């Protein structure tokens, strides 16, 4: 019997949420919802990608995202190889495309790429036949993080239509913020950002979001806070006077959360700077869904691998 089909499906690559339709985002979230169960099985593995090879090319440091992708790939039955800048030919001056083409010559099926340059994932996708999944490119997008945030919010608050979500902190340097803004707006949520003007991108107005320069006002307005990591490595450039002052003015503290007019849901993409953008008793408190985000990350990445895999479009199924 013919099976119900996901339509529209994703194309060859996943570069960002900006280019996905509401239906495509919903299809990924719905697929991830069913994939959560696989991680609860006695054998946490399905053979769907058996014989497929996925290369995790992390040209920028990451533990959380890389491990999450590796779990997702292994649970889908794929063979995986991880490469990083350190010790690879990239250090010897090889270009990104040459690296990818050499990998492709070894018969791979997908590349998961993290790169410090915005646009690196698209650049690669346009030049190789394998599917490319963006695992974070510069300040551009981090689509699977955006998707796992959407899934976690949907798990707790139902449909996102009309929900008020405020992204707090270093929006300027954050690819997570961009993916969140595009994904949330596509699903009908109202989106705001909160933080000092120095940490807001110049085009923040063009993204169609409102801006709060006081965390109290953001909390007064929001149903959900997505608290971003203050990128301390970039703070030497003088974006804020001091970490202590940042916590005093913009920190998500227990007192502020308890003063909220409604039951707040608190997300954080990690890693957290406890006592800076978020206090420990909030991060570990009843409003926090931070660890569930991590769990959902594996399911979302499994769903993306599933929806990007496969051959030409013909209707399958048998009895």
């Amino acid at each position, binding site marked *: 019997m013919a*099976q119900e089909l996901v339509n529209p499906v994703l194309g060859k690559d996943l570069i960002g949420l900006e280019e996905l339709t509401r239906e495509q985002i919903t299809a990924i979230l719905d697929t991830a919802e069913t994939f959560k169960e696989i991680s609860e099985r006695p*054998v946490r593995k399905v053979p*769907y990608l058996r014989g497929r090879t996925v290369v995790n090319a992390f040209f920028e440091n990451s533990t959380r995202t890389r491990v999450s992708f590796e779990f997702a790939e292994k649970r889908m039955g794929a063979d995986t190889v991880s490469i990083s800048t350190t010790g690879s030919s990239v250090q010897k001056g090889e270009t990104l495309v040459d690296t990818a083409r050499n990998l492709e010559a070894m018969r791979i099926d997908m590349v998961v790429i993290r790169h410090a340059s915005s646009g690196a994932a698209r650049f690669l996708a346009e030049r190789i036949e394998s599917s490319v999944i963006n695992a974070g490119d510069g300040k551009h997008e981090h689509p699977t993080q955006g998707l796992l945030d959407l899934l976690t919010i949907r798990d707790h608050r139902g449909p996102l239509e009309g929900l008020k979500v405020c992204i707090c902190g270093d929006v300027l340097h954050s690819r997570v913020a961009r993916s969140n803004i595009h994904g949330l707006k596509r699903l009908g949520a109202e989106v705001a950002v909160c933080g000092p003007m120095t940490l807001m991108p110049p085009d923040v107005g063009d993204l169609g979001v409102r801006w709060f320069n006081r965390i109290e006002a953001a909390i007064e307005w929001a149903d959900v806070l997505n608290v971003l990591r203050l990128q301390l490595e970039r703070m030497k450039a003088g974006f804020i006077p001091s970490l202590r002052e940042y916590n005093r003015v913009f920190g998500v503290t227990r007192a502020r959360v308890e003063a909220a007019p409604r039951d707040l849901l608190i997300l954080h993409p990690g890693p957290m700077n406890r006592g800076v953008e978020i206090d420990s008793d909030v991060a570990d408190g009843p409003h926090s869904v931070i660890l569930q985000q991590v769990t959902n990350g594996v399911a979302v990445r499994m769903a993306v691998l599933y929806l990007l895999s496969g*051959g030409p479009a013909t209707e399958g199924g048998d009895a």
Partner: protein
Amino acid sequence: MPEPQRRPIMDAQAVEGALGRMADDVVRLAGDARDLVLVGIHRRGVQLAGRLSDIIEDRHGAGVATGSLDITLYRDDLMVVGPRPVVGQTRLPAGGIDDRMICVVDDVLYTGRTVRAALDELADFGRPKRTLLAVLIDRGGRELPIQADVVGERVEVPEGGRVEVMVPEIDGTLGVDLVEAGA
């Protein structure tokens, strides 16, 4: 392209009659209905397993555990399937399937590849004492050495034709149609 010809081959009453006979056969083979788990293959097998469970409870006074299997991720035709099929839920009883009598239920048995995938998936959940296969329709045409233990009806299907089982929860009606390729 000529229009396909659709012909009803079982009405609701005929399907109910076949399910009644199947329920009795399943209990006879299982020996003890209390030990049984009926696992329907997504999608229509799930509804048929539910109906069989109700019939067994009515006739034998024993509640039968049910579950569902979605075999999409165990299919062996990854490269020829285009748009990704929607993956449904796999749910098995909380106590697991180890040492239990499992009866896999599906609507149509044809090539046997779906059943092979279902057996592979079940093996990832545990080791049943015994596994039975019950299908409403056996249309022949096997590509693997797999046979059903319990069959509602055997149907000859002309080349190019297919059998469509309809259940109220999905199709709004209960019955079986034979759909033949247009002349």
